[in-house]
């Protein structure tokens, strides 16, 4: 996935985090805010991690030529 798209998803994830924060405050579950923050961080890591592994596709024909 191109970095530009990941930036868009990162922004959306942060917005989702803010929405989650507002919901937790409204429902009186401030005790879960730490978990919410940790989850946003983990999802952000997942969004950006292992990207360099995604190399170009390898079709059977291409594999035979190599």
């Amino acid at each position, binding site marked *: 996935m191109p970095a530009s798209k990941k930036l868009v998803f990162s922004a959306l*994830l942060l917005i989702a985090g803010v929405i989650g924060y507002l*919901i*937790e405050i409204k429902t009186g579950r401030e005790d879960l805010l730490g*978990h919410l923050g940790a*989850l946003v961080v*983990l*999802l952000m890591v997942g969004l950006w991690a*292992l990207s360099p*592994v995604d190399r170009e596709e390898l079709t059977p024909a291409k594999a035979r030529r190599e």
Partner: protein
Amino acid sequence: MEIHNSPMNERQRRYREVYRSRTSGWYNGYVHAFLIFGTGLYAIFFFTMNLSEVLWWEWLTIPVVFLGGQWVEYYTHRFLLHRPKKSGMGRLLYVRHTLMHHQFFTAEEPRYANHRDWRVTLFPPFTLTIATLMMLPSALVAGWVISGNVGWLLMASTIGTYLFYEVLHFLCHVGDNWFVRHCPIVNTARRHHTAHHNHSIMMETNMSIVFPFWDWVYGTSDLDRGLIGHLFNGYSTKHIKKDLRQTAKTPHLLPHVSKASSKPGPEPANR
């Protein structure tokens, strides 16, 4: 490193060798698995922590999301991953699945050699993030219109359904052992999915990747038996259809349908 005493042919062996040579040296399957399963389980934990005094009908969200998720999986697999497209996302999905995953793993040799091969089955970690973001609007609406519990259950069930797929697909490609041979659902998924990796039937048979419910509904399974039999078939090849169409081509591209005598589907890796 390759599996010793494998029945794979030279073409598959060569493909796996070239594929591995192009994988970054620092790739680690355990890290990849942790990012998906660790984060996914933590997300489910967080979503369910928000539940309170769940009513009986709110629990129904789980089976509804599960079957809906299985349908999305079936539809995507059947009509996107096995249908060649010339450009865009359709082409990417077809190449990554039919031309890469199905070349790396065949019905003759569906196993990983080591953790670095996990890359060929596990989705990229960003999939979990995108799945979470995609479900969020529906969950917000459900939470507002129906109840807060339904909204949280919608999120938890979606991630649970995704992890269910990842776990089962992962177990379909490990070597045979006592657990995968005897665990219900898992053993069924292994035979079902290994049969799907047979190149002569992969374009239209066993299109539910790991849970054959929708194959039973749409009649695209290689088994001729009822729903319960489908879900708990295990490794048995007793009920395999005798008139399976053998074609490695995309069905809608064929000018006519040719029927060939059935070759029973392969049994899961039992080596």
